[in-house]
Each structure stands twice: as C-alpha cells, then as structure tokens.
C-alpha cells in the first residue's frame, strides 16, 4: 500500500527581509485510499506544504524527511516526483501558450505511465473523462489554461488527476473561486478517484464548504507552519462553528 510520510518538515523561503521559515516541523502520514483535509487560516503555510511536496524551486527544505513508499521524495526532481506518483492540483494553474490540452495530456500521461497510451483507447479515455467533468470537447484543442475561466482551470486540474491516477494527490484550494455547480462537478471527480481506493488524497482548503461534498477520514488544523490539531470529520464542524481564532491568537 502506497504511503506518503512527512516527518518534521521544515521549509523556508527567501524574502526581501531575508530567509523566512514557513513550515516548522510538519508530521503527516497519508496512506493510499485515505482522505486527509488540511484546514487553516491564510498564511498558515498550507500552500507551502503543497508546493514543497511537488518540489517548487521557490521553497527550500531545511530539515525533515518526505518519503513515498520509502523513497526519498526530497531527492527527486519535480518531474521525478510526478512519475513516482505525486500529483498537485494547483490553486492557480499556469497558462502554457502554444501547447494544446490534448497534446499536454498525452505527453504527461506518456511520461507518468512510462509508455505512450494506445491512441484508440486514449482518445476514448480522455473523451469519457471530459464528459464526466462536463468539459466541452472543443476544450481539447485550446492551449493549456489560456483564457480558461476559474472553473475551467479547476476542472482541467481534476481531469489530469483522473487520467494520471497518482498514488497521492495534493489538492491545493481546488474549491476556491468555484460556484456551487462547479464545486459539485469537481468534487464528484475527486470522489471517483477516492472510490478507486488507489489514491491517497490531501485536500487543502480554507473553507469547510467542499467537505459537504468530499467527506474526509481525517481533518488537520494547520497553524503557524505545523499541524496544530488532528481529528475526524467532526473537527471540521467545530471549525465551521468556531473559526480558526483559537489557533491563531497568542505567540
């Protein structure tokens, strides 16, 4: 069973005022088939965790370990991490002019699967995945994220999630900026991946709204660069009622 283990992770970034530590000792284990929600106020370091796991060059790991099935993730380049089975659905997916969605999806599936998918089955696979997410077929010929609406970008991220079938998926504020219909469609996509039982999901969110559609097994409150409290789904209800204040006040 695939397991992502994060142990005592420290991460810093360079700012105008020197080095700043954002993550101060994160411990978390995500197993295949499990869904963990990470909730926390703005600036608590949730997105830093997501980008550090994916290997974004802006973030420097200063301590701790991250392993996927025992393999050292921190030693891997960004593309190696993806091929090892990590996936990051981004809050702000990047426009890539000149590269069509269909070309992008096929190139990335080829890289992650280690061989080019057979053309006939691939076309069908993409078509069906797009239909399930209510994505217009014409979308395939558009350039990646270019001129996409907020909802289209997020659907496109979930489309990739469904096609790449990672061992562990990190969803960074996938719910932000979505209307209720889009949120439902996107959540259904995430739930399909969860139901396969083959993917561990780390759902990073500021709001409890998405948890009405995706029920987590574990909820963690993130504050000041580490996990402040962990519990079951009931912890989300408590946050809904009381907010993050209890975790942010005091030094």
């Amino acid at each position, binding site marked *: 069973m695939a397991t992502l283990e994060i142990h005592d992770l420290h991460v810093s970034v360079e700012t105008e005022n020197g080095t700043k530590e954002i993550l101060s000792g994160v411990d978390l284990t995500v197993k295949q088939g499990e869904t963990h929600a990470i909730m926390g106020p703005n600036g608590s370091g949730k997105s830093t965790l997501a980008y550090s796991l994916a290997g974004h060059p802006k973030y420097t790991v200063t301590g701790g370990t991250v392993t996927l099935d025992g393999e050292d993730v921190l030693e891997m*380049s960004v593309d190696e991490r*993806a091929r090892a089975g990590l996936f990051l659905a*981004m809050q702000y997916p990047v426009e*890539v*002019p*000149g590269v069509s969605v269909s*070309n992008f999806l096929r*190139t990335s599936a080829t890289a992650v699967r280690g061989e080019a998918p057979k053309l006939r089955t691939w076309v069908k696979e993409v078509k069906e995945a797009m239909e399930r997410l209510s994505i217009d077929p014409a979308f395939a010929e558009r350039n990646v994220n270019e001129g996409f609406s907020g909802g289209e970008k997020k659907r496109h991220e979930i489309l990739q999630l469904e096609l790449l079938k990672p061992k562990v998926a990190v969803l960074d504020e996938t719910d932000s900026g979505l209307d209720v219909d889009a949120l439902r469609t996107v959540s259904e996509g995430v739930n399909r991946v969860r139901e396969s039982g083959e993917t561990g999901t780390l759902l990073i969110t500021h709001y409890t709204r998405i948890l009405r559609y995706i029920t987590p097994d574990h909820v963690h409150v993130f504050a000041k660069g580490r996990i402040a409290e962990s519990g079951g789904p009931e912890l989300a209800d408590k946050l809904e009622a009381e907010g993050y204040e209890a975790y942010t006040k005091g030094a």
Partner: protein
Amino acid sequence: MAENIPVGSTTDGAVQVGGGQPADARVSAPASYDVADFPVPHGREEEWRFTPLERLRGLHDGTAVDDGGVRHDIFSPSGVTTELVDRDDPRVGRAGKPVDRVAAQVYSSFQKATVITVPKETVLTEPVRIAAHGQGGTAYAHHVIEVGAFAEAVVILDHTGDATFGGNVEYILGDGAKLTAVSVQDWGDKAVHAGQHTALIGRDASFRSVVVTFGGDLVRLHPRINYAGPGGEAELYGLYFTDDGQHQEHRLFVDHAVPHCRSNVVYKGALQGRQAHAVWIGDVLIRAAAEGTDTYELNRNLVLTDGARVDSVPNLEIETGEIVGAGHASATGRFEDEQLFYLMSRGIPAAEARRLVVRGFFAELVQQIGVAELQERLLEKIDAELEASV
C-alpha cells in the same frame, strides 16, 4: 504592444503618418548595383547597428573573395528552364536594386547568375529545389526565379554546410502568377550568410514566402517586396531558432507603391543561450499612390533562457489615408519558470517541456502556410532542431 519584455531586449515600434523620414531611409546609401556606391560600414549606421561586422568575414568590406565554396544543385520539374547568364541579362536585377554593401558586393562579384523560368500558365505539381551546400569556402551567388503569367510554382532553397556566403535571390511574378518560395537556412555552426531576397509581384499575383533560419554563426537576410501592378498579394512567414552564439537577422521591407495590394507578415522566433541574438526589422511603406492597401505585420519572440537578446523593430509609414488597413505588433515573451514547473509537475522532463512549448509556438505559424507537404517537412525540421538543441 510589447509585453513581457525580458531584460536585454528592445522592442520598438513606430507609426508615422506622412512626411518624416521614409521607412527606406533606414539604409544610409541609395540602392545601387555597384558596390563602390556603398561605403564600407563601420557599424554605427542605422542598418548595421545590430550586426557584428567582425563576424561577417569580409563580406562587407571586399576582402571575402569567391573561391567557389558553395555547390549549387538544382532539381527542376520538366517544363522549367535553367540558364546561366551574365550580369547584363535584362532579367537580372529587375526585382530591385541591392540596398546594402553586402548585397551590392554579391551583385558585383558573382560569376554567372542562374535564371530559373517557369513559363506562363504552367502549373507545377512538384517543387523546384535549389540545394546550396557550403564546402567551407567563400561564394557569391545570384538566382532569379521568374514565374510567368498565371503560372503556379513552389520553389525551395536549402542552405546547408559551412561557408561564407553572399546570396541574392530575385523572384519575379508575372500577372496572376502564384509562387511559394521557401528559403531554409539550415547551415552548420560556422556558416556566415548575408543577402537580399527581392520579389517583384505582378498584377493580381500572389507571393508566399517562408524563411526558416536555424543554422549558421551569422545570418542576415533582407526579404523585400515590390509590386508591379495592383491586386498583388504577399504573405511573408518567417521562423527562426537562435541558439547560443548565433546572430540571426531578418530585415523586411514592403514597398506599397501601387494601389490595392495586400501584405501580411508573420515572423516568429525562439531563442536560447546567453549569446543568442535575433534581430527583426519590419518596415512597411505605404506611398501616396497606394490607395486601398491592406497590410499587417507581426513579430513574436519566445525567450527560453536568460541572456538571449531580441531586437524587434516594426515600422509603418503611411502617406495616404485611403487604405483598407495597416497595423503591426511585436511581442517578446519568456518561457517562464512557472510554466516549466507546471509541465514538470505532470511528469514531463524539463527538456521535453521546453520542446513542447517551442513546437507549439512554431506549429501555430506552420499551420498557416497552407502547403501540406511543406508543413510536414517544416515540422519535422523543427522537431530535429529541437531534438538536437533543447
């Protein structure tokens, strides 16, 4: 009109309406067939200021002497004639005079000009191919491609190998003729190539030019358009991939001197490496007589790595208000680290991510060319270039 301009690049643009300095005054001496009419450039002249003269290997100062260093092979379908003629043949120099010292040097130095004629009303089903292969020496060559009235042809010029090469080409289109002219600069790393490609477009004729520059240490071309009668059309497409250490310069001039002609220019370039330098000059002049002109020019550059330099200078001068349209745009963008991260986070290795982006950038242009066989060949060439260099 410029966006995302990387450090070390310039993107200037100008639109002048009437008066002022004519666009063609970018040249410091009047056009002439005689090299003696052009002073040896020192590098500060408007038309030479971007060019590293020391890398021209004497093409600009008379010290480069023809030693037959380029072999030319011509493959022409039946019905097409090929002749070697002297400088005084009336077909030589008809499309337009040399506009700079190098082009005049070529005109003054070539042994025989090659005239390739597609007779009137002849529709070729396969292209005329001219293969210029550098053997490491120095050569001057002048080609005239004449396509008679209502004839249709595709001409492909391929430049390969290494040489110091001054090459002029003239395209003469009769009334209603259609010519697609492709010039591929696929030189080796040491080649130097400068020259002028001048088209004279007959009444209601269509000229489509595709200039592809991948190779060479230095390539400096002047594609120029003149119209012989109303109704002429010019589509000018260009593609360049400038690697570390390469200087690739394309200086276009479209002279709208007769009414109701059209021109459309799209040049796209990708650059990588610290010493990569691309120059694009797009001059369009709409003279007072050229009522009903419709023109647009676009230059786009994609900078893949730090340190590469682009100079992109579109310039439009309009002497009559009675036109259909006139415009230009120039944009230089970077391949961003965030784009690279996004593609890599989907398992795509860095080099493949770069290739994907550049291939897409060029494919958009290639698809506009409209000759399937040619498109395929160009995409293959782009792939090979990307495979070798990215």
